[in-house]
């Protein structure tokens, strides 16, 4: 599909074009879904509509079927997506496998895998964490042993988001044991989940949804041509894919949505008459405002063609903790109604107080727990010993 040079437009021009089409084409029943991570089938029509338009993959270069957006336009894309309440699509192929193959894959891998991501034929998940390798990812033990033209994989992954609706997994495996430096000897491979020996078991989360899974590997045969980059050198690859996208872990859209819900509930239940509530609400409102200012600072670096340093994780920490504080306040306003699991009626509407409260437990844990983020900032930004 022939794409235009989006980066030649101003941000506002691009925003207008993108918003108009998305608003007209994203099905209304998929807007503002309460589910954060719908499975592929639930959002397939939206996925295919985007694919057909050529707008599924904002960042991939146009020669590979992406829009080729620079960071500034990508921010617009993500902002409008959130503003219009479009559902998150299973995006590990777009956001993870694709960029990795574009940078490190062989021509054959690119030709084989990239089109199938865009068509939705391959739905990817990310096989990184293990039961004993979470924050300490480099201690992973799922092994891959060379056997002729194949590798034999044994081990277990966990917290694998949407594995139960995926048919391919981007897997980090240990190919060599190096006790001195555990980051050595890790390899990235592309694994067909329909291969015998792969078993997926969904895990119910606190919201009663199964959006992450355990994935077991028992003597799973993976062709050696499915290794990405050099054997034993996968750690650097796995770390490199998160570039400017790290800013989106701190995008204010979740706390913004939650604060609107809090305002609706507070308005309806008369909480704004209470000076103590007003004081707490004002703090949350200002926190959200100032998160916007901080986000803008980093967005500006990207717009001016700069690179983000480790500093950007400050957004993730603040954003995820703010989201929690808002949902905690929402339960406080709910009073005795906080005993209900279901949404709370507010006029003709509903406020999903408990849903948001439970949902907000996750972002301080995923994407590198906030404790790990603080460790990284201590070393990389403050240069502490």
């Amino acid at each position, binding site marked *: 599909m022939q794409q235009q040079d989006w980066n030649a437009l101003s941000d506002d021009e691009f925003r207008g074009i993108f918003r108009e089409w998305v608003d007209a084409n994203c099905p209304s029943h998929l807007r503002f879904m309460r589910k954060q991570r719908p499975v592929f089938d639930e959002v397939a029509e939206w996925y295919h509509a985007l694919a057909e338009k050529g707008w599924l993959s904002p960042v991939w270069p146009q020669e590979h079927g992406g829009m080729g957006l620079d960071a500034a336009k990508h921010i617009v894309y993500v902002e409008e997506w959130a503003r219009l309440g479009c559902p998150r699509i299973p995006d590990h192929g777009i956001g993870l496998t694709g960029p990795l193959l574009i940078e490190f894959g062989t021509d054959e891998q690119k030709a084989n895998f990239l089109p199938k991501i865009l068509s939705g034929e391959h739905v990817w998940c990310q096989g990184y964490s293990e039961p004993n390798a979470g924050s300490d990812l480099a201690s992973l033990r799922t092994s891959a042993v060379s056997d002729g033209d194949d590798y034999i994989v044994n081990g277990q992954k966990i917290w694998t988001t949407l594995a139960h609706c995926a048919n391919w997994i981007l897997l980090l495996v240990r190919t060599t044991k190096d006790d001195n430096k555990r980051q050595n000897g890790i390899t990235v491979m592309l694994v067909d989940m329909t291969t015998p020996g792969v078993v997926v078991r969904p895990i119910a989360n606190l919201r009663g949804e199964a959006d992450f899974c355990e994935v077991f590997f028992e003597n799973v045969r993976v062709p050696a041509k499915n290794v990405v980059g050099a054997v034993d050198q996968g750690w650097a690859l796995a770390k490199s894919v998160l570039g400017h996208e790290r800013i989106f872990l701190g995008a204010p859209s979740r706390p913004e949505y939650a604060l609107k819900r809090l305002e609706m509930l507070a308005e309806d239940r008369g909480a704004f008459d209470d000076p103590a509530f007003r004081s707490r609400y004002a703090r949350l409102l200002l926190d959200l405002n100032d998160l916007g200012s901080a986000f803008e*600072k980093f967005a500006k670096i990207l717009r001016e063609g700069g690179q983000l340093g480790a500093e950007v994780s400050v957004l993730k920490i603040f954003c995820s903790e703010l989201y929690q504080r808002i949902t905690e306040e929402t339960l406080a306003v709910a009073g005795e109604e906080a005993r209900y699991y279901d949404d709370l009626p507010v006029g003709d509407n509903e406020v999903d107080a408990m849903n948001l409260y439970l949902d907000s437990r996750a972002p301080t844990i995923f994407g590198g727990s906030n404790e790990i983020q603080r460790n990284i900032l201590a070393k990389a930004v403050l240069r*502490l010993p």
Partner: protein
Amino acid sequence: MPLISLDDDDNTLGMLRESANALAERIDGAQVMRSRRAGKSDLDRSVWTAMAEAGWLGLLLPEELGGLQLGSRELVVLCESLGRGLLTEPYVQLAVFSGALLMGADHGANTSALAGGLVDGSRIVTTLWQTERGARAELKATEKDGEVLLNGCAGLVSAAQSASDYLVLAQSDGDSVLVHLPADTGGIGVSLRASVDDAQLGSVDLDGCSVPSGNVLARGHKVETALVRAIETNRLAIAAELAGIASKALEATVDYTRERIQFGKPIASFQAIQHRLVDMWSDAEFACSAVTDATEKLGEPDSAAASQAVLAAKARAGDAAIGITRRAIQLHGAMGFTDECDIGLYMKRAINLNATLGQPEELRLQYLATERAA
């Protein structure tokens, strides 16, 4: 370390920052505070003169009043540097606040003379407009037969003792007036109370002080508009100074905890300390970006959004500076509790600035009220 970051294509901000830092290098702000305290002084003349020589006292004033005619961007960069360098003379109260009132006044000969003296440091011009508790003071101006009689009490006056001239915000027959009152006029009584940041805050009693009617510099709507503007500009300047204090106190604490050895290791190697330092850094980052945001919005046409952003910036920077300096003292251990260690002086300065023109809670509630009224 966190800094206010504004576009600076021609490097004017960079040069301003350099010259401010150079002055801060030359003057030991902490020592100035201690000697000011010992001498019960409300202004250090040598620092003030240095600021005048650098041109900072007329930063915002238009060229016709002898100023540099620069804007908010330059103001925040300068004030951030003052905060970092612990240069604690009442720059915002005299140069910024009184300066803003003069800018809003009728630019007659009297205003020009005052502005000229303010800019070159030959006159110390402070404003009487608040009570001792921070409310709007009820100062009365009675105009009769070509003279103005001033009566009432004002508090929280910076440089009340050192002042050569007062600007008095008074009511005359239900109308606001801005009156120039030379400090040598009869009927003025000044008493001083120590301020937490080692200066003096004055209470000024006006008992039938008489000045010629030509000393009325502005009246009516003009006065109120100038006051609103002066408050907003001052809040922004203070927010910037607080952001500078926050960032510098963090820096000092990082340095100290890297050097301080206990259990055979620098205490900065302990995770409990590291996470606190990261949270302090995060607070300073947010303070700087909030001030940046307010400064940029002041350059845009939407003045309501800019006013909201200034409230947000001062609330954020105040909380950051207070919270960071407090934790900084804890992380300095017993040293942090001594007068000899500068970190406590940063905290004291932060407390004073945070309490000036609205503490964070009050500013946030004002922000909320505006937001909900819209």
